């Protein structure tokens, strides 16, 4: 599904990812863990195609297609979804308007018909209910004045509506209390499917109690330094990243 080969990425002429190789097959959830500054968020942004994140080497294929050739919105339409660590506020644009525009833009790009207003609303109501989001909140400008937890739930609502093929969750647990964490995790888990892959980027193990990964990778100084099963996350939680910092240097 997602195949990353020897990826190097620079931001402001500083090399952050230094030859990262990773393969996430369809149906699997992989976790990326690592200390601050290891390049975790950079990986998510690079895959999504953020401007000023310059890919200087390596390759990324997504379902066999060259992902790096595509523009940001084309990657989204191809099914790549990045859940932001800090979702942006969009003043004056009601969440419903934003979401419907996004959905229809993707469908248009894929050559599909636009979704009708009644169908869209019906689906939104269902999803919002499962995420304990009030419909009134969706009439307000997206994320403006929302709490950290509300913003994260909005990210999950968007992914549930857009039904992407591949999810990248960037520190989705940050700023969430236990109850919100459960709601958000349930929402993500509901999207687990044999034809969908996920990359869960996190600093802490606690999110992985809720979203159980198939594989765990340790990212230090721009490279994957160790990969293993879910037990690796528990090990990291107990021992920290210190032993890997030497490996990377």
């Amino acid at each position: 599904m997602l195949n990353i080969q020897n990826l190097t990425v620079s931001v402001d002429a500083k090399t952050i990812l230094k030859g990262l190789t990773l393969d996430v097959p369809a149906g699997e959830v992989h976790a990326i863990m690592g200390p601050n500054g290891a390049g975790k968020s950079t990986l998510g942004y690079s895959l999504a195609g953020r401007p000023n994140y310059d890919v200087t080497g390596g390759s990324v294929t997504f379902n066999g297609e060259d992902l790096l050739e595509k523009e940001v919105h084309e990657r989204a339409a191809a099914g790549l979804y990045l859940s932001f660590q800090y979702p942006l506020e969009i003043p004056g644009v009601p969440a419903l308007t934003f979401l419907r525009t996004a959905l229809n833009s993707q469908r248009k790009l894929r050559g599909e018909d636009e979704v009708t207003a009644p169908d869209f609303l019906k689906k939104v109501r269902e999803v919002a209910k499962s995420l304990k989001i009030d419909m009134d909140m969706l009439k307000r400008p997206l994320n403006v004045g929302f709490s950290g937890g509300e913003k994260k739930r909005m990210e999950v609502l968007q992914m549930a509506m857009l039904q992407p093929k591949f999810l990248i969750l960037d520190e989705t647990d940050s700023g969430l209390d236990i109850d919100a964490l459960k709601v958000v995790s349930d929402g993500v888990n509901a999207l687990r499917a044999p034809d969908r892959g996920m990359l869960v980027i996190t600093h802490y193990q606690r999110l992985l109690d809720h979203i159980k990964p198939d594989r765990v990778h340790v990212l230090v100084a721009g490279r994957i330094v160790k990969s293993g099963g879910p037990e690796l996350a528990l090990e990291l939680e107990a021992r920290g990243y210190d032993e890997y910092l030497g490996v990377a240097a």
Partner: protein
Amino acid sequence: MAAVKETIDTVARLETYEHGFVTDIETEFAPKGLNADIVRFISEKKGEPEWMLDWRLKAFERWQSMDEPTWAKVKYEPVDYQDLYYYAAPKKKEGPKSLDEIDPEILKTYEKLGIPLKEQMVLAGVEGAPKYAVDAVFDSVSVVTTFKEELKKAGVIFCSISEALREYPDLVRQYLGSVVPVSDNYFAALNSAVFSDGSFVYVPPGVRCPMELSTYFRINAENTGQFERTLIIADKGAYVSYLEGCTAPQRDENQLHAAVVELVALDDANIKYSTVQNWYPGDAEGKGGIYNFVTKRADCRGPRSKVSWTQVETGSNVTWKYPSCILRGDDSVGEFYSIAVTNGAQQADTGTKMIHLGKNTRSRIISKGVSAGKSTNTYRGLVSAHAKASGARNFTQCDSLLIGKTCAAHTVPYVESDTAKAQFEHEATTTRLSEDQLFYAMQRGLSQEEAVALLVNGFVRDVLQELPMEFAVEAQKLVAISLEGSVG
């Protein structure tokens, strides 16, 4: 590669002005240039009463002694007033009596513009759908006004100002120039001398106008100035909502548009005036396009009267326009909601004046300026309170959004108060279109242009909400089109 991209962008931009076509019809011109004889020619063509000709000639005399204003933050090639046609009319011996008598080419033009001129088309629409009465002005003359009969039943007069001068001379004489005197400013004086047509509305006491009234202005002929004159009177307790739309063909030379709009609101009357101005803006380098030098003013003459201006300004090469309210009646209310979008080499200097004369008068100004390309966008506004205007209140909010690094936004608010009992508030912000917001929207599937359009429409939403529904949708699209190619 870069050069190729640039060329593509330029062509794309050129194609974005979809109203840039020219209609091929026979046009009757007055001789080029301006003198007292031309003023007489226009007046005679219109079959005007003697007093009107005198009024025009006096205005012409005043204009000759005045200087073109230079205080606005706009630069443009001087206008050669002797190199313009002051009268251009589709050739026709008599004014058309019904739609069937109008040159089909003109009707086609309005059709292209999406204007529902044909009443039957409107009537064939969904039941309960809002109806619009339309007055269409083509170059110098009004070609047709729809729904006249239905309006007449309600007692509402809606016709071209030429017709009003013939049919209701006393009403016109009473109010014309009473809000914008002939000597008010250079362009108003010029307009007073040579105005060719425009709309006239009178809503009698206690009448709520049963439908939206609208006028579409179209400059078609070359080297022609358009000088329309609009006069709207809402008598005691009356209500009217009026829409104005403007387009012009794409031409290499600049065209002058100097309109005057006067609104009179008597006791408890309410006028809502909305404009979607989409004159040709010129090309990316500033060649061609309309000089839009317009004087719009409302007189809230009676107590508790209210006037609300809403404008969406996306076109014109240069805009010089300050729709204002004189809050004369006690407890009267003035509102100004504005969206001004500039791209390419456009320059806009626009804003409002709220003159508080009466007690407990209130005004509200919401201005949203969006600048892109190499354009300049200035908000210029005055809020003043007379010594007797105790309890006057104003709230002003001016927000500017910058797209790219080569545009400019300026805010020039003037606040004057002669009473300690007035309360004026002013808020202003300037922000740059955020790369992060763009990336976020694009990550969800929007193309760059869709993302810009969505974010900008969010920025101007407070004002869009003030427009009548159908206009709001049109305006939203227009804002998006105006900004195509502004990022990247």
